[in-house]
């Protein structure tokens, strides 16, 4: 089944859909993702794009990593 990454989805929504994304995101620098108190509150409203901006993690790097892990990322998100 195709796994689709949408960077404008909330972080919580993303990891609920793809639990394996937790590890990927943690390694990318989203260390709070393993803290349920943060994931269930902040993660509920923040999108991956905004979270990346906040953490100073390049969106391109995130997209590349997810592609390497076999996710599909639509081109429009790369900008």
């Amino acid at each position: 089944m195709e796994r689709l990454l949408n960077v404008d989805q909330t972080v919580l929504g993303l990891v609920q859909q793809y639990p394996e994304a937790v590890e990927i995101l943690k390694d990318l620098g989203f260390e709070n993702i393993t803290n349920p108190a943060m994931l269930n509150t902040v993660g509920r409203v923040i999108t991956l794009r905004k979270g990346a901006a906040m953490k100073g993690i390049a969106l391109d790097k995130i997209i590349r990593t997810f592609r390497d892990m076999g996710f599909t990322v639509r081109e429009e998100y790369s900008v």
Partner: protein
Amino acid sequence: MSEMINNREYRQKVLKELIGELHRGKSVEEVKERFGELIQGVSTTEISQMEAALVAEGMPVEEIQRLCDVHAAVFKGSIEEIHRPQKPEETPGHPIHTFRMENRAIEALVDRIREDLAAYNDGEDKKTVKKLLEGFEELTEIEKHYLRKENLLFPYMEKYGITTPPKVMWGVDDEIREAVKKVIALLKSNPADKAKVYELADEALTKVSDMIFKEESILFPLVLETLTEDEWYHIYNESKDFGYTLVKPKAKWKPVRVDVEEKALESGEEPSNDGYIEFDAGIMTPEEVNAVLNTLPLDMTFVDKDGHVKYFSMGKERIFSRPKTVLGREVQNCHPPASVHVVEKIVEDLKSGKKDHEDFWIRMGPRYVFIRYFAVRNAKGEYLGVLEVTQDIKPIQEITGEKRLATD
């Protein structure tokens, strides 16, 4: 009916023509009169609907915006009449509206300070130091924004179990306060240490900007989906005591509520302040009814058929406190947005007759609370509203054996 639709179509057509005329360079003054005629007796809702329909047809939004000037001219400047905000937080005066307005002002100030900082870095003299210092002193105003956030928003978040994000954010607020203070102290004592001033100032400004981003993308969405309108009203009332940063709210904010008494009178219900009320079996005075309902060993709240809270009993120990301000509120507004759909579903099922009641039981500290929602119908079976009955059933559950004698 068809006449109405045709009318609407006709108005739509004229509206399009007017926009066309504006596009071709006619002045607001010239089309004002025709627009005024067109919208005579038409509700503002319909006007915005017409505009939305034009957008849906493919008319660019900028074209529609030309109409705003005409609205303004016709309605003596009150565009808000038509472009009524769709979300409560977009209403001027709503605490979030105020927070966002402050953030825009802080952003402008940060931009200005950054220019001063660049000038200082290029060639420092007394004037640039003074300007930079003034900028940072103005930035200390941010304290009021943070205080309101920490003392008014955070406690409510904690009440709903959101504890970690406020804690983290509070820590960063403190860092910002400290950073701004340090820059000011340095500018006062040793403004010649350019590299140091630049580094600290740049760091402080970046932190301020980052915090705005965090507020807008995490904090505000989170509280907006969590707090009830009554809680926002409370926050609104307390805000004045803390003060505002750089800008003040321009309007008073009032949650939407209905005057239950006025509504009853309008629908032809007569007040019966004296005399008797006839029941299916017997009669009582209003005073007796009130006292009897307050004596019942349970709490009641009645929501009328339109969803407005109309009455609640005032027993000695209410399980869920109900401020009188809840009267006339739509029942949806008294619940956190996240649970509103549950409430709406219950009301809908009771109203439609799908269910006659819906029960819940929850543990609340020492109490075991039984919450029941009943559909209230008259003899003809017509729906009158929902009655919520809550009761602590723990003492009742604990009853065993028999008690045949009165207590001394």
